[in-house]
């Protein structure tokens, strides 16, 4: 919470890597589920959404971190929202300029980045307390984790639901697409499957660690 003394952390590789694995916004913190489920129907949409969110996250966190001694705590949330909304509007124009097809595919979910709790959460919990360098590195890490998560859903859904990857057909005409995968329920199925994989890997690693530790205690 702002107002408490700064608990500045030392910048290390971990500042970046944490976002990818340990604090992955999608698979671990379960934040920003709305775009994760809605626009991960193709790999291109997922990648674009991930990059757009990453830009907003890093840019808004940069500004929040720069202004962190300057924002009275009573108006901090309002300030963060203005900052975030500014960058979202910029991204919105940028995507329209890059490709109208992409803009139509992403629909309202670009504007909805404003209320992505991953971004507000980072501003409140990290950027408002940490120096610029750490904030940017952490933001890039969290953004990369988010993009990776979206992409891992998008790739699976596009391959199963459309038989293509990044719009390139993978199988012959005889492929019967599993249409439900690109419909909303498919988002839940694939997310659930990935969460299962992550939980299983985590459990497996913990068991391995336990087994390694046991002999040490005995000796």
């Amino acid at each position: 919470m702002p107002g408490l003394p700064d608990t500045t952390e030392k910048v290390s590789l971990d500042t970046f890597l944490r976002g990818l694995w340990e604090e992955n916004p999608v698979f671990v913190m379960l934040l920003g589920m709305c775009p994760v489920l809605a626009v991960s129907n193709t790999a291109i949409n997922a990648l674009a959404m991930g990059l757009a969110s990453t830009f907003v996250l890093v840019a808004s966190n940069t500004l929040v971190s720069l202004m962190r001694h300057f924002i009275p705590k009573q108006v901090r949330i309002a300030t963060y929202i203005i900052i975030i909304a500014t960058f979202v509007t910029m991204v919105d124009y940028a995507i329209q300029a890059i490709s109208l097809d992409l803009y139509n595919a992403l629909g309202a979910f670009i504007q909805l980045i404003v209320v992505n709790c991953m971004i507000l959460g980072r501003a409140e919990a990290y950027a408002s307390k940490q120096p610029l360098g750490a904030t940017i590195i952490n933001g890039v890490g969290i953004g990369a984790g988010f993009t990776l998560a979206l992409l891992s859903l998008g790739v699976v859904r596009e391959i199963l639901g459309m038989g293509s990857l990044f719009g390139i057909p993978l199988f012959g005409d005889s492929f019967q697409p599993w249409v439900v995968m690109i419909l909303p329920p498919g988002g839940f199925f694939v997310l659930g499957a990935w969460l299962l994989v992550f939980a299983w890997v985590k459990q497996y690693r913990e068991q391995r660690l336990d087994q390694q530790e046991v002999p040490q205690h005995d000796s």
Partner: protein
Amino acid sequence: MSSEGINQAALDPGLTVRMLRTLGLVATLSGLLVVLSYRVTLPIIEENKRLAIERALFKVIPGAATRQDFVVTDQGIQKASEELEGITLYAGYDQDGRLKGVALEAAAAGYQDVIRILYGYDPYCQCIRGIEVLKMTETPGIGDKIAKDPVFLENFVALEARVDVSGQGLEHEIVPVKRGTKTQPWQIDSISGATISSNAVARMLNDSAQQMAPIILKDIAILEAGA
């Protein structure tokens, strides 16, 4: 804001100033950035929209090479300008400036949301020469076939939309029929499994052509002279 915060602000006038200063500064900065990105991207976005319309236009008017915009007003069809308001017509001409057809927008409620299409009307054969979906949110793999199903798109190679003798509407309504039962040139062979989306396309074409085909034929001289 908590009541604690309000009390603090009342006790400490400096806090009010600090809050105003911060919000004012952030809002100003925000305005600057938004206006800047708007100005930078505006010409590119306009160009993208123009390209998107032209790409669709040349698809629905076979043989078109150039275009001229018109507006339907109470006084008939006029060349488009900033002040004129009304339904926009895009006339397509070939290399020699001959009118090849007119493209119009049509829309109707589909399965999920409004479907918007651009269709090409050929005033010489009095038929619809092609459709291009501009915007839809139909179910992927089912309703979105209206944009790419080859058998369905075959309907629009020459879909009859002949104006009746009174010059008020169409001789035959454009109607959807079950797949494989099309016998008349004004019928649309539906996509099985996507009845609602197919019906929506038929309905919007019928509604639009009933109203617009007579207007186009009446003022065809203006359109022909437009290039």
